[in-house]
C-alpha cells in the first residue's frame, strides 16, 4: 500500500489537487499521509480564517507558502449591533505586514469585521504586484486617503468592494486616482461612502473598463446621471443606484428607462435611497430579468412596492422593508416562484408609534412559505408571531437552511395563545433537517433549547436573545447540536454550570459569545485554566474583574478556540483567562 502513495509524481498529485477547492476537502487530503500533506500545502492557493485570532500569520505562512487568496474575519458577529466595545481588536495589520514579505504574489484579500488602516492599504498597494481583489465587508479604520493608494497603484485591480464598511470619507477625489491606463475593473461597490465621487472621473472609469459587471454606487450619485453612466456600460450585470429621486423631467425618465432596457444582462438592482415612486417605472423593463433586488432602503408604500416586485417573476433574492406588508408578500408568493431568499427589515424598529405603522404580521411570512417552494433563507422582522404560524412555515418549507426571526419586542409570546414560542421553533428544527443557521426571538423557555439540541443536527450558527429559564437551556444546546460552530447569546439566564459541564464542546466550535448572562468571573478563570486551547476573554468595562468578587457576573464573554495562544493586542477592558489564572488567587 505504501508504494501507491509514491506511485504518482508530485506534479500529478498537484494537478489532481488543483481541482479540489473546498477547504474541508483540502484539509481531508492533507491528512491522508505525509507526502500528500506536503504536496497539498505547497499547492494550496486559497485560505479562509474564520477567526483571525485562532491562528497567527506566521503559522499560516509557514504551512502554506504559496497562497494567492486570503479571507479573514475579525470581530464577533454581535459587533454589528454595537455589543462589542470599540477597540476590542480585529486588527489586520500584523497579517498584512507578514504577508507583504512572504506572499509577494498575493492576489486577493477579503476581510470581514476587521480594522484596517490607511497604512495597511498603502502596504497592500505597494507590496502585491498582481493584486486583484479587495473586499472589505463591515470593516473600519480607514479613510478615502487609503483608497487613493489602492486606486493609484493596483494596476490589475479587478474588484474593489467596500460593502457596509465605515470609511472616513474626506472627499470623492480618490476615484480620480485610477490612471487612464487602468482598464481592468470588474466590480466596484462604494455604496457605503458618503461623499460625492467625481462624476466625470467615474464616467470615464466605467467607460474604459470593458469587463465591468458590478457597479454599486453611493447615495450621492444623482438619478439623472445614471442613464449616461449606464449607456457606457451596457454589459452591466449588477447595478446599485444612488438616491432614487429626481424631478423626473420626461426626457430624464425616458433616458433612464432606455438605458436600463439597453442593459440586457442586468439581473441585480440595489440602492433606491429616497425613492420617488414616480421614478420607479423606469426600471420596469428589467423586472423579468431580475434575480436579485434590494429595496431595503426604499421607503415607499405597499402598493408601489408590490407593483414593482410582482413583475419580477424570476426573482431569487429579495430584501425589502416591512412597508411591503402582508398584502405585498402575498403577491410575491403568487408571482415570484423562484424566490430563495427573503429579508424583511423594520421601517420603525424603535416603535415610536404605539400602533404598528405597517400591516406586516406573521401572515406575510406564512404566505411566502406556501407560495415559494424554493425559499430557503429568511430574515424577518415583525411584531407578532404564533406557534401555529411557525409550525405551518416549518411544514411548508422543510428545505429551509437559514431562518432568522426577530420579533421586535423581547419575550413576546404567541399572540393567539399567549404561550411561549417553544413549539413553533421546535417545529422549525424538527422539519428543516438541513437548517444551518437559526436566530430565535419571542418568549422562549428551556424547552425550545431541548428541541434544538435534539433535532438541529446540521445547525452551525445559533443566535439567542432574552430567552430560556436556566442553565439547562444552554446545556441542551452544548450537549446536542453536533455541527454547532458559532453560538451567540445575550440577556439569557445561562451561567456557570452549563458552561463548565460542556467545556470540551467549546473546542469543537469556532466561538461562543455571551453577554448580559449569568457567568461568573470564577467560572471564566476555571475555564481558561482547564482549556489551554481556548481563549477565554472577559470583556468588562467596569474595570478589572479581580476588583470584584469571583461570583460576580462578567459583562461579556468571548470564547474561541485557538492555536495561537492569548492575543497580545487586547485593550484595557479585555482580559484573557489563561493557565495562570488560578481560582482563588486574586
Amino acid at each position, binding site marked *: 500500500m505504501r508504494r501507491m502513495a509514491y506511485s504518482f509524481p508530485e506534479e500529478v498529485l498537484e494537478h489532481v489537487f488543483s481541482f479540489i477547492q473546498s477547504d474541508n476537502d483540502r484539509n481531508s487530503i492533507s491528512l491522508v499521509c505525509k507526502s500528500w500533506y506536503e504536496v497539498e500545502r505547497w499547492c494550496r492557493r486559497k485560505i479562509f480564517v474564520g477567526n483571525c485570532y485562532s491562528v497567527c500569520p506566521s503559522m499560516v505562512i509557514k504551512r502554506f507558502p504559496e497562497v494567492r487568496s486570503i479571507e479573514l474575519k475579525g470581530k464577533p458577529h*454581535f459587533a*454589528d*449591533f*454595537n*455589543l462589542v*466595545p*470599540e*477597540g476590542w481588536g480585529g486588527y489586520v495589520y500584523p497579517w498584512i505586514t507578514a504577508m507583504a514579505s512572504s506572499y509577494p504574489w498575493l492576489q486577493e484579500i477579503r476581510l470581514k469585521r476587521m480594522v484596517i488602516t490607511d497604512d495597511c492599504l498603502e502596504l497592500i498597494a505597494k507590496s502585491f504586484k498582481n493584486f486583484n481583489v479587495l473586499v472589505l465587508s463591515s470593516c473600519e479604520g480607514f479613510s478615502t486617503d487609503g483608497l487613493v493608494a489602492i486606486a493609484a497603484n493596483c494596476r490589475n485591480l479587478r474588484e474593489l468592494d467596500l460593502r*457596509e464598511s465605515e470609511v472616513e470619507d474626506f472627499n470623492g477625489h480618490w476615484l480620480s486616482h485610477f490612471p487612464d491606463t487602468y482598464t481592468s475593473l470588474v466590480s466596484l461597490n462604494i455604496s*457605503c461612502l458618503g461623499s460625492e465621487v467625481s462624476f466625470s472621473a467615474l464616467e470615464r472609469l466605467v467607460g474604459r473598463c470593458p469587463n465591468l459587471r458590478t457597479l454599486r454606487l453611493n447615495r450621492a450619485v444623482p438619478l439623472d446621471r445614471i442613464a449616461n453612466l449606464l449607456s457606457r456600460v451596457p454589459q452591466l450585470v449588477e447595478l446599485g443606484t444612488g438616491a432614487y429621486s429626481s424631478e423626473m423631467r420626461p426626457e430624464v425618465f425616458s433616458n433612464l428607462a432606455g438605458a436600463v432596457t439597453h442593459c440586457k444582462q442586468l439581473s441585480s438592482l440595489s440602492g433606491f*435611497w*429616497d425613492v420617488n415612486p414616480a421614478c420607479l417605472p423606469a426600471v420596469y423593463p428589467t423586472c423579468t430579468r431580475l434575480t436579485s433586488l434590494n429595496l*431595503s*432602503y426604499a*421607503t415607499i408604500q405597499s402598493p408601489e412596492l408590490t407593483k414593482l416586485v410582482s413583475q419580477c417573476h424570476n426573482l431569487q433574492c429579495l430584501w425589502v422593508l416591512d412597508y411591503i406588508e402582508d398584502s405585498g408578500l402575498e403577491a410575491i408568493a403568487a408571482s415570484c416562484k423562484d424566490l430563495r431568499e427573503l429579508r424583511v*427589515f*423594520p*421601517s*420603525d*424598529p*424603535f*416603535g*415610536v408609534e*404605539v400602533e404598528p405603522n405597517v400591516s406586516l404580521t406573521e401572515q406575510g411570512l406564512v404566505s411566502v412559505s406556501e407560495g415559494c417552494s424554493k425559499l430557503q433563507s429568511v430574515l424577518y*422582522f415583525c411584531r407578532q408571531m404564533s406557534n401555529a404560524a411557525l409550525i405551518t412555515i416549518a411544514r411548508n418549507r422543510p428545505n429551509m437552511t437559514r431562518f432568522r426571526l*426577530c420579533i*421586535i*419586542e*423581547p419575550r413576546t409570546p404567541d399572540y393567539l395563545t399567549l404561550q411561549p414560542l417553544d413549539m413553533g421553533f421546535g417545529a422549525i428544527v424538527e422539519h428543516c433537517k438541513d437548517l444551518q443557521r437559526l*436566530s430565535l426571538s419571542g418568549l422562549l423557555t428551556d424547552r425550545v433549547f431541548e428541541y434544538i439540541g435534539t433535532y438541529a443536527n446540521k445547525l452551525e450558527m445559533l*443566535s439567542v*436573545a*432574552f430567552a430560556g429559564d436556566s442553565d439547562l437551556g444552554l446545556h441542551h444546546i452544548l450537549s446536542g447540536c453536533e455541527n454547532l460552530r458559532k453560538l451567540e447569546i*445575550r*440577556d*439569557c*439566564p445561562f451561567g456557570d454550570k452549563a458552561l463548565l459541564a460542556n467545556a470540551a464542546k467549546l473546542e469543537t466550535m469556532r466561538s461562543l459569545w455571551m*453577554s*448580559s*448572562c*449569568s457567568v461568573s468571573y470564577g467560572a471564566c478563570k476555571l475555564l481558561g485554566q482547564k482549556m489551554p486551547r481556548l481563549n477565554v476573554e472577559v470583556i468588562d*468595562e*467596569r474595570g478589572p474583574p479581580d476588583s470584584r468578587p469571583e461570583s*460576580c*457576573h462578567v*459583562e461579556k464573554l468571548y470564547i474561541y478556540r485557538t492555536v495561537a495562544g492569548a492575543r497580545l493586542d487586547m485593550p484595557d477592558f479585555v482580559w484573557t483567562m489563561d493557565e495562570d489564572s488560578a481560582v482563588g488567587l486574586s
Partner: protein
Amino acid sequence: MMMLEKDLNLDATELRLGLPGTQDEDQPAVTKKRPLLHTNQTSNANNISSHQEEIDPPSKAQLVGWPPIRSYRKNSFQTKKSEAEAALYVKVSMDGAPYLRKIDLKVYKGYPELLKAMEEMFKFKVGEYCEREGYNGSDYVPTYEDKDGDWMLVGDVPWDMFTTSCKRLRLMKGSEAKGLGCGM
C-alpha cells in the same frame, strides 16, 4: 375677528385629568405596548458603553443592540425622518369637557379629515361650514389659536397655512363663538 381671549385667562381654567402641573400627553387609559425593559442581570450595573451610540427615542428604555439592526440602516431612517417634517401635535380642548386631547396635524390631509377626527374624538357634529357664515347648525365651533395669539375660525385660511400657524385647537361653544366670523 379677534376675540378678547386673553382676558379670559384660559390656561387657568383648563380642566383636565391628571395632577396639576402635569401634561396630559395622550388619551387616558391607553396602555402602551412597550413596557420598560431592563437588562436582566442585577450585577451588571451598567452595560452601556460610552462607545455605543444608540439613537433611541427618549421614551424607550435603553436596550443596547436591540432590535438587531446595523447602524447604517438606522441612519438611513433618521435622515428620512428629519427630512420629513416632525409630527405636529396640538392640544384640542372642548368647552365643558374635562379633558384635553392631542392630535397630530401632519396626519390629516385637509380640513374635512381634521374635522371628522375631532367629531369622532369628542362625539359631536361640526355642522356646515361656509365662508360667509362660519359653522351653521352646530353646538360647537372649531377654532384655533394662531402664532400671533389670535383665535381664528378653523377653515378660513388655506390648509398649509393653517398647519404651520396653528398652536392649539378649541371647540368653542356656539354661543361664545359669535365673535368669530368669516370675512376679515
